[in-house]
């Protein structure tokens, strides 16, 4: 047990819950607030959407998050707004009123989540009105699935809610008194723990003291171990508040200028998670990125290609964290192309992802770096394929040789996202797509329309 202190719909709250409690479990089971619904319990459907804001940052807007996979302890010093908090007496919030008037609910189970996504849009628009383009609405509502009403009435509600009168309630800008977090170094080594270090120094020290603790930031993957596989996560270190991990800068690295250097927390989680089907690792491999691994004594820098060792196994030692990622900026002549193949356009994990970095010098392929996700136990460079293309002219023959090399160097597995044969063929086809794209620079194979 550990204490969380936060604001809930403007009212200060203190709760003692185990470290692996989600915001949704806190609300529904501990606080008896059942307005927020559990749909998929894996961060896909958005029925559990709630809004969260840092009250000490005056510039910060509310953000929508999936309560089912967000650790309740990340609410510390935050303001949580739920569906129960929007209406003032009988006066509905514009997001609610517009959903009623536009017939935006049918069975109503996804509705609280949709209203909360509209609420964050509404508060953002109040602060900084910007045109509601279809792309913007897709970004706002893309995480909310509705299986009976259909999205048009919901879109109508999003478009019309701004014209309804609304006065922000006073509690909106409520602030929290400063909270004194327990010093993680004084907690027993086997006791349950939710540490929230704010500096890299604190982080590496806590990491060393609790080698079995899991690191968490966005929790999109880690929390599924709890909700789906029912694993107990009794020691967690939250890296989302470490200042050093929130910065990105342009600097010189390896005696070359023009590198983007930073950590970006959940972005780093995508790397250290080492999933063979993570989105960013193949891209970073094709860019030849480096990572810095730090512990309490110091740090070391290694190429990302040597970081992934085997399925979910990395070069990271038990007391280390990724402190920085070094990404070279593309030179003017270089091109990076990335194609992700998945069953849905939004909110889906790839079956195969191919990243291709190269530059064309008088019709000859140079500095070719290719990496794939979904083709091996780790995200992996396609070294033989690269070699087959390096220094070769843009021709059917050279790409056929590359496809042959690709076949030889990868033996993907069959699983729910694609069979071995599908993955091999799809990866070959991505090379074909690259060839066709290079042959006709003003044409591209693309997906126009997709099923909702």
């Amino acid at each position, binding site marked *: 047990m550990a204490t969380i202190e936060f604001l809930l719909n403007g009212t200060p709250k203190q709760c003692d819950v185990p470290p692996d409690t989600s915001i949704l479990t806190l609300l529904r089971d501990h606080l*008896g607030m*059942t*307005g*927020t*619904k*559990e749909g998929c319990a894996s961060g896909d459907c958005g029925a559990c959407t709630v809004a969260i804001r840092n009250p000490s940052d005056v510039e910060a807007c509310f953000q929508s998050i999936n309560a089912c996979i967000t650790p309740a302890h990340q609410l510390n010093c935050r303001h949580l707004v*739920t*569906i*129960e908090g*929007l*209406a003032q007496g009988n006066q*509905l919030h514009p*997001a*609610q*009123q517009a*959903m*009623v*008037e*536009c*017939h935006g*609910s*049918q069975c*109503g*189970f996804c*509705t*609280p989540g949709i*209203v909360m996504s509209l609420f964050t849009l509404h508060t953002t628009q109040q602060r900084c009105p910007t045109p509601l383009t*279809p792309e913007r609405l897709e970004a706002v509502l893309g995480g909310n699935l509705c299986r009976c009403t259909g999205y*048009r*009435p919901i*879109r*109508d509600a999003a*478009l*019309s809610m701004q014209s309804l009168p609304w006065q922000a309630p006073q509690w909106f800008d409520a602030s929290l008194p400063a909270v004194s977090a327990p010093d993680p170094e004084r907690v027993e080594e086997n006791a349950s723990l939710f540490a929230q270090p704010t500096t890299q120094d604190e982080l590496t020290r806590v990491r060393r003291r609790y080698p079995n603790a899991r690191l968490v930031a966005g929790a999109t993957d880690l929390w599924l171990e709890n909700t789906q596989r*029912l694993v107990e996560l009794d020691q967690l270190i939250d890296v989302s508040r470490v200042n050093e991990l929130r910065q990105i800068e342009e600097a010189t690295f390896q005696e070359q200028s023009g590198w983007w250097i930073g950590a970006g927390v959940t972005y780093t989680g995508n790397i250290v998670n080492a999933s063979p089907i993570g989105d960013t690792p193949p891209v970073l491999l094709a860019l030849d990125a480096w990572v810095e691994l730090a512990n309490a004594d110091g740090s070391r820098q290694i190429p990302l290609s040597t970081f992934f060792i085997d399925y979910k196994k990395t070069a990271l030692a038990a007391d280390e964290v990724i402190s920085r990622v070094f990404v070279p900026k593309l030179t003017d002549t270089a091109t990076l192309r990335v194609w992700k193949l998945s069953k849905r356009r939004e909110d889906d994990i790839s079956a195969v992802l191919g990243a291709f970095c190269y530059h064309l010098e008088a019709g000859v392929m140079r500095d070719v770096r290719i990496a794939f996700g979904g083709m091996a136990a780790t995200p992996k460079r396609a070294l033989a394929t690269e070699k087959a293309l390096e220094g070769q002219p843009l021709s059917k023959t050279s790409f056929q040789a590359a496809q042959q090399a690709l076949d030889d160097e990868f033996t993907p597995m069959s699983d729910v996202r694609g069979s071995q044969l599908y993955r091999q063929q799809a990866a070959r086809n991505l090379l074909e797509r690259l060839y066709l794209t290079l042959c006709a*620079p*003003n*044409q*591209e*194979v*693309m*997906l*126009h*329309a997709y099923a909702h």
Partner: protein
Amino acid sequence: MRTLTKLDTDSRRARRELHDQLQGSGPLARHTVDSQSQRQAGSASFHESAQKHVTGKAAYIDDIKTPADALHVALGLSPVAHGTLTKLDLEAVRQAPGVIDVITFNDVPGHTDIGPVFPGDPIFVDQEISYAGQCLFAVAATTLQAARRAVKLAKLEIDEQPASLDPVAATEREEFVRPTHVQERGWLENWGSIWKAYASVPPAQTRYPIHRPPPPPAAPT
């Protein structure tokens, strides 16, 4: 729809062209009715539960407050689509923290077939597994988490057989859920007596209007 598109005009243009078709170009749904003329044919009324939906006050089964001593049930489901259950060892499940009771097919005292219209829907698997996710056993525990964790401790042995996934092949093998029957039009031997029975019922004695059949067609000669 996968097509080749000119890049010089950019994917944005393709998107714009499809915009009206994708998003619908009609007026907003709430503008298609006159809100003054509520509850008349041709006008729209708000969903009777809309206010409850948008405020989170609509109570679904999962939202009903449970009594303090409520037990929570989790089900053990078949991981395969077709096979014979040869061993179901639930000892570890019974011993798991928080577990109060575990039941299987053999613990059900009354009917074990709960098919509401036709028989063929066993409440638990006895031996034959006929679909993935078919219920093998149930665990009652003090919390839902304890019940779900206990389910994972079951030791199953299943003689797995090939699943029937192709309807055409299944038809050829005559793997039917129900016995086949045939509907056809034509002469019915007792047509005349059926019509007579209908025609003889006085209208006042019928609870529902009887759709009287036409007089019987002439028998084939």
